[in-house]
């Protein structure tokens, strides 16, 4: 594809290119065939690496004392009301966390890159911090902070600019696990920030912003109509990583006494490992479906889109 478009742009005269390719045809074709075979082999190995555990888990889930292919375990999984309820809870938490992370990080990363480039190292360090703090420490600390006496401490209120008392109040008045969602946001931060920041790095944020401003666009409009469409793959990656992180998170949910799907899975696994295996497969499929559902939202990038006259356009450069 690359060589074709280059030729069309006039970098390589067609005749010269054809001659060169004719000279190299034999070894080139052999080389290409070898390369394709190698790539297929690697792909096959990767697929086996991914699918064998899943297949084994499925086989284990469907095999009980009555032999392989026992679908009663599957029926039991779907008949248990806790299954659907915890799955919905996890999905809700994952969705809320994803929204929080994307809505918070995208404008922040954009603003930092645009106006405070000197703050980028600080933000990068902060984004890596969750790797250094185990979830159990994070969960315990947050619980102490928001549920304990610390929430009413004037010093904490001052240091947190009033956010801790406010969130603490919201936690008690609203029936939403706000602190848990925030905690999930913190553990997803390293993946999400990196994905969004990398996308921002790929475009000239400053010049695009100035171009939009010269046409009359303000900050928000520039972010939504110019920057966001161009970093959408990064935002989508951040969303997918956050979503799947939350769907599989156990420690924080356990500490926050939230009955999520991983907790249900863990509890089930202690009594019936076959059902737990089926639930693991179910969890995988639900996450996969959600992820696949998100991909079309991103839409095809212009570069990959099949556009009318694409080839002709390249040829007319």
């Amino acid at each position: 594809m690359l060589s074709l478009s280059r030729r069309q742009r006039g970098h390589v005269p067609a005749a010269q290119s054809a001659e060169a390719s004719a000279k190299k045809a034999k070894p080139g074709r052999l080389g290409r065939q070898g390369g394709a075979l190698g790539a297929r082999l690697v792909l096959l190995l990767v697929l086996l690496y991914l699918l064998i555990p899943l297949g084994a888990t499925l086989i284990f889930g469907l095999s009980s004392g009555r032999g392989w292919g026992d679908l009663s375990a599957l029926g039991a999984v779907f008949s248990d009301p806790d299954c659907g309820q915890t799955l919905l809870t996890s999905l809700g938490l994952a969705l809320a966390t994803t929204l929080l992370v994307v809505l918070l990080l995208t404008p922040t990363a954009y603003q930092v890159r645009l106006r405070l480039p000197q703050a980028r190292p600080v933000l990068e360090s902060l984004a890596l911090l969750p790797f250094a703090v185990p979830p159990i420490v994070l969960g315990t600390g947050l619980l102490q902070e928001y549920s304990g006496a610390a929430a009413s401490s004037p010093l904490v209120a001052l240091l947190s600019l009033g956010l801790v008392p406010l969130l603490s109040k919201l936690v008690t008045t609203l029936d939403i696990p706000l602190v848990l969602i925030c905690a999930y946001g913190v553990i997803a931060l390293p993946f999400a920030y990196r994905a969004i920041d990398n996308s921002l790095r790929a475009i000239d944020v400053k010049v695009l912003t100035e171009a939009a401003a010269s046409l009359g666009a303000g900050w928000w409009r520039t972010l939504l109509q110019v920057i966001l469409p161009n970093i959408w793959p990064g935002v989508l990656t951040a969303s997918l990583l956050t979503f799947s992180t939350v769907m599989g998170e156990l420690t924080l949910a356990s500490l926050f006494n939230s009955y999520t799907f991983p907790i249900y899975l863990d509890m089930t696994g202690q009594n019936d490992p076959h059902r737990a295996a089926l639930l693991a497969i179910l969890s995988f499929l639900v996450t996969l479906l959600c992820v696949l559902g998100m991909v079309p939202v991103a839409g095809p990038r212009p570069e990959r889109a099949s556009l009318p006259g694409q080839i002709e356009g390249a040829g007319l450069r």
Partner: protein
Amino acid sequence: MAFLELQELTKSFGRTRAVAGLSLAVEQGEFLTLLGPSGCGKTTVLRLIAGFELPDAGRILLDGDEITARPANRRPMGMVFQSYALFPHLTAEQNVAFGLRLRRLPSAEVRRRCGELLALVGLTDRAHYFPYQLSGGQQQRVALARALAVEPKVLLLDEPLSALDAAVRVTLREEIRRIQQQLGMTVIYVTHDQEEALAISDRVAVMARGRLEQLGTPEEIYRQPRTAFVAGFVGTSNRLTARLERAAEGSWLADGPAGLRLRVAPQPGLADGTSVLLVVRPEQVTLRQADGEQTAIALAQGEENAFLGRIELRTFLGAVTRFRVRTEEGLLFTVDLPGLQAGTLIAGQRVLLSFPPEACLVLPLRENTAEPSPGNELRSQEAGPLSEEADQRYERQPEPASGRG
């Protein structure tokens, strides 16, 4: 009052002063070019006008209104960037429509104006192409149409042709000029390419070290530079420092390096002993083959400045042939001769090099000033054709042995 006025603009970045008290007035419908070497502050001035930077001091007035602190998105300016800055996710038509949609114009009106503007820049058949499907020149045309779409009061162009190849640059600069004249648009154009500046501008503002060195028509800038910097930066020139003497004789002589004496036109107002920079354009110098008798006569008559020398280098440049000639006194001259005059002159040949006193531009040496010394009247010169190397930079000028002015 001028349409756009910059009053004592100052802008520093850290300890670097990018713009130092610059004042400038631009008339409506005028094409003004800010010309200068890299780092002279010309782009900063443009960004101050656009509102991307705020000045430390000074005021910007547009049509009588002060816009100094107005945000960029509320200034009636259009901007074309060196890197095109097209929105990658939008087609050419959508890029042009961006500003129109922000103004909530009806869809039919947006389509109509996009069509008109794309036709204006000759890209009607590329309306549905994405930026990556367009060549550099085409992208810059789309950027131009996009900037024009919002009907700005002033169009700002920041080195819009720098990223393009030479042939496209010439074509596109002519198109920019045509469109500007067709629409009667006020344009401020930034470039470091003097040929580009001289070719398309109504007036040129030459900048150095954040200051305005000279403001004038392209002809004035080339023929009557007012500072040593402008003389060196615009066009190719031979320069040497000298001291004026024998003022009483009317026709002054300069005491150049190694006791060399040059005849220059009278310089009323300049005192005897003043240190000056003499500038001689390459096209003002003539060369002819040195033969004994004629050469002796020419040198003896002394009406022109004449020197014997030897051609060191002959370079064919198309419209002119450029010679590098070293005189017997050790001075190195650059001489441009039209094709026919270059004739049979070849490298290594002994020649008589001469130029009339009127060909010498005399600039009193006073560095870091935009104004010449009081009373100095620069001599008008015959303008020769701009050579293809007219964008030769000050630092790269071929120089006489006396050193730089």
